[in-house]
């Protein structure tokens, strides 16, 4: 009797979670296993995969200059966009946390680009960046500054792309930090105020330490997403000029779908997985050094 009830319960339970579990197995678990195998083959996707051992990995590490170049570009992009968007996001969150009438409108304005698609964003910034008659250089010209050629300049293209990414994404850190700010009890600020702490020292001694858990979460999340930047690059630069903005995922995409090297692209995917995993692990290890969780 008891056994019957238990098995009936199991059937009912699995009816509820079954579709999702089946989906995860079919569309995630199985592909992960296939992906490990694919990375060890020479595979164009047209004929059967030919087992090649670690040849793809060897080629990536020893023969492919684009592998290192795109990794470096991705690192530069990630560092720039994470530092700027978390820093700028903090400024916006502090402003947005002020109790002023109508503050919600400003917060919504800063968050709006997060929900706009990368193609529209890419279109607009592409025209803003036009060297001769774009809005940005037009303004710079008013101040007698000759603007760069932005997207076609080897030295400026990456900076231009980082600016767009920060503009589009800064609302997200703002939101997370606002949530963090709102969880800090007012009494702590009051106590510091009574002790005669200036606004500046209240920020450094009270606000910032209590915000470190949010900052920690954000740097990890932003790192993981920035390392997989694709949309803006695809729309605005196609990796150019001369590979100046060619990033890792764009290169994976090209290897697989432009050059027909599926096994090679799979190997690139796994290397990315290891890199992201290692850096995330390192961030967790460094957590104790700077993240403050209260008494």
């Amino acid at each position, binding site marked *: 009797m008891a056994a019957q009830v238990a098995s009936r*319960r*199991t059937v*009912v*339970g*699995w009816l*509820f*979670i079954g*579709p*999702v*579990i089946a*989906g*995860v197995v079919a*569309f*995630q678990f199985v*592909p*992960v296993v296939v*992906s490990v195998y*694919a990375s060890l083959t020479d595979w164009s*996707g047209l004929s059967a995969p030919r087992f090649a051992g670690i040849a793809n990995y060897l080629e990536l590490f020893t023969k492919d200059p684009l592998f290192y170049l795109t990794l470096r570009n991705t690192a530069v992009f990630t560092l720039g966009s994470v530092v700027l968007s978390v820093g700028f996001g903090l400024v916006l969150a502090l402003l947005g946390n002020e109790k*002023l009438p109508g503050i919600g409108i*400003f917060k*919504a*304005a*800063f968050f*709006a*680009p997060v*929900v*706009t*698609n990368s*193609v*529209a*964003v*890419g*279109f*607009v910034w592409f*025209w*803003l960046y*036009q060297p001769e*008659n774009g*809005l940005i250089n*037009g303004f710079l010209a008013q101040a007698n500054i000759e603007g760069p050629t932005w997207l076609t300049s080897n030295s400026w293209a990456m900076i231009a792309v980082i600016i767009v990414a920060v*503009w589009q*994404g800064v609302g997200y850190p703002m*939101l*997370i930090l606002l949530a963090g700010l709102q969880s800090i009890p007012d009494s702590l600020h009051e106590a510091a105020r009574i002790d005669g702490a200036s606004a500046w020292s209240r920020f450094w001694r009270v606000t910032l330490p209590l915000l470190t858990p949010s900052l920690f979460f954000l740097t990890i*999340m*932003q790192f*993981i997403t920035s390392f*997989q930047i*694709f949309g803006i690059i*695809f729309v605005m630069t196609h990796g150019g000029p001369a590979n100046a903005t060619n990033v890792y*995922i764009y290169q994976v995409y090209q290897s*697989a*779908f432009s050059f027909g090297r*599926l096994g090679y692209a*799979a190997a690139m*995917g*796994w290397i990315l*997985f290891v890199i*992201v995993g290692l850096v995330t692990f390192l961030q967790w290890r460094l957590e104790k050094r700077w993240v403050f969780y209260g008494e």
Partner: protein
Amino acid sequence: MGRAALLYVVLAVLAIAFAVPLIWMVSASLKPENEVMSLPPTFIPSTPLWSNYVEAFHTVLPFFWNSSKLAFLNVVFLLLFASLAGYGFARLPFRGKNIAFASLLATAMIPGIIYLIPQYILYREIGWIDTHYPLWIPRVLTPVFGTFLLRQAFMSIPRELEEAAKIDGANAFTIYWRIMLPNVKPALAAVGVMTFMDSWNDLFGPLIFVNSQELQTLPLALALFQGEYFTQTNLMMASATISVIPPLVLFVVAQKYFVQGVTMTGIRG
């Protein structure tokens, strides 16, 4: 100047500088072609050319329809499967639950790019390439964050609510559908809004799995036809504006739930 006034000035300057790209997009979409690139740049079109929108909408209508259809399918079915699984994990006692839940969370840690190539092969084998299936079926069946979020919501509902129904002889599905679902509406709204945004703004999926022009979604169609259809910048900007209106409107309307979802899961970047 008072502190509040100063803050408003700082906020206003930042917000205006911040909004310039979007304002410029709308302004360019209403200009005649020869005015778009005029120097010095003008923000207010001399005479707003609303016909640009008629023309742009005419061009992008099929893609607008495709995007809408996919967003609808994604939202409806993701909510269904995620809430079923969320309820199962939150409330039903059964064998294998813990292992299943741990496996579900484990998949959240693997970057999407790892799945991509085998998925492409799989879809090709089963004839899904160049159809809309890859853009919704795999997604609604793998709603990891949605399941997690809804599980949390179900767990916060008092047990007494179910107990009474159970005594009345209601089965698990009736309890889930009649009693539990109506009680987690805010969480459903949060997951639904985020699912809409992800589906509407997706670039990678349609780019890789769909080839035919008539099956393309709105954002990607814009990207692909850049130059081909939109030799006129004003029409391009009108089309881009059309593509950002639905998510912006939804964001304004459902801001509360969207913000809640973002802060709870942290999956947007």
